[in-house]
């Protein structure tokens, strides 16, 4: 970590190699598109590198949790700005996934996107972190940078919306 703080990009590359898969998966589950998730994660890594080299990483959490925090916030911003631009749609050919597992993941991502499409971005992120990624409320609070009470509130509201939609 000290080497990254000194601006060593090779040391940062090792962090990228170790974390990119999980972060892109998280981003894709929140924004509902692999290509958009890659853009979100790339922006997040640039923000993280700049924060590290300018001494703005305060080590309040592990690097992985901190990166998840940046990716989640960047994904929420990306969802909020969607009203100003067209929604990207992945095709299986574009995605570069091979075989049945890739096609299945693509379909599941589209299903998730349709299911959570009516939720505001912050509620959508909270639902993904809890029900899809399997995080506890306390971990979600750290990742979203808010109190556990605020997380609970978002989850309650999201569940009410999802319940209404499934009833109609």
């Amino acid at each position, binding site marked *: 970590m000290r080497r990254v703080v000194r*601006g060593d*990009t090779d040391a*940062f*590359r090792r962090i*990228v*190699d170790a974390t*990119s*898969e999980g972060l*892109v*998966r998280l981003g*894709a*589950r929140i924004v509902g598109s*692999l290509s958009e998730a*890659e853009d979100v*994660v*790339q922006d997040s*890594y*640039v923000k993280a*590198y*700049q924060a590290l*080299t*300018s*001494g703005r990483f305060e080590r309040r959490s592990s690097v992985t949790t901190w990166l998840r925090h940046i990716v989640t916030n960047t994904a929420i911003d990306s969802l909020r700005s969607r009203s100003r631009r067209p929604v990207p749609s992945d095709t299986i050919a574009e*995605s*570069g*996934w091979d075989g049945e*597992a*890739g096609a*299945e*993941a693509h*379909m*599941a*991502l589209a*299903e*998730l996107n349709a*299911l959570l499409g009516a939720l505001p971005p912050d509620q959508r992120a909270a*639902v993904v972190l809890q*029900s*899809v*990624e*399997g995080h506890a409320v306390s971990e979600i609070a750290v990742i979203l940078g808010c109190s556990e009470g605020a997380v609970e509130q978002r989850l309650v509201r999201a*569940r009410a919306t*999802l*319940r209404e939609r*499934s*009833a109609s």
Partner: protein
Amino acid sequence: MKREVDEAMDERLAGIGRRTAALRPRAGFDDRVMRAVKASGTPGLFEDVLRAARAMVPVAVMAAALAMGWAVRTDRAADMSLAATFDAVELEW
């Protein structure tokens, strides 16, 4: 009823979680990230100066407060000596 709907939704979302576990970035993604990181550049001299300046803010605030205190004290002393001079002039007159 409400609980059953929530449980069914949780189950469905957990299933989607398992089915999307195969998601991974496309080949060459990490290289693309590193190109973007290098293009963003490391903080230069300006950022270093800015960081050092930010660290000096508390010292500057303390120095400003001390200077203000010193100025007020000096001003008061000057006023008193000036007033004493006026008194002396009036007495002489």
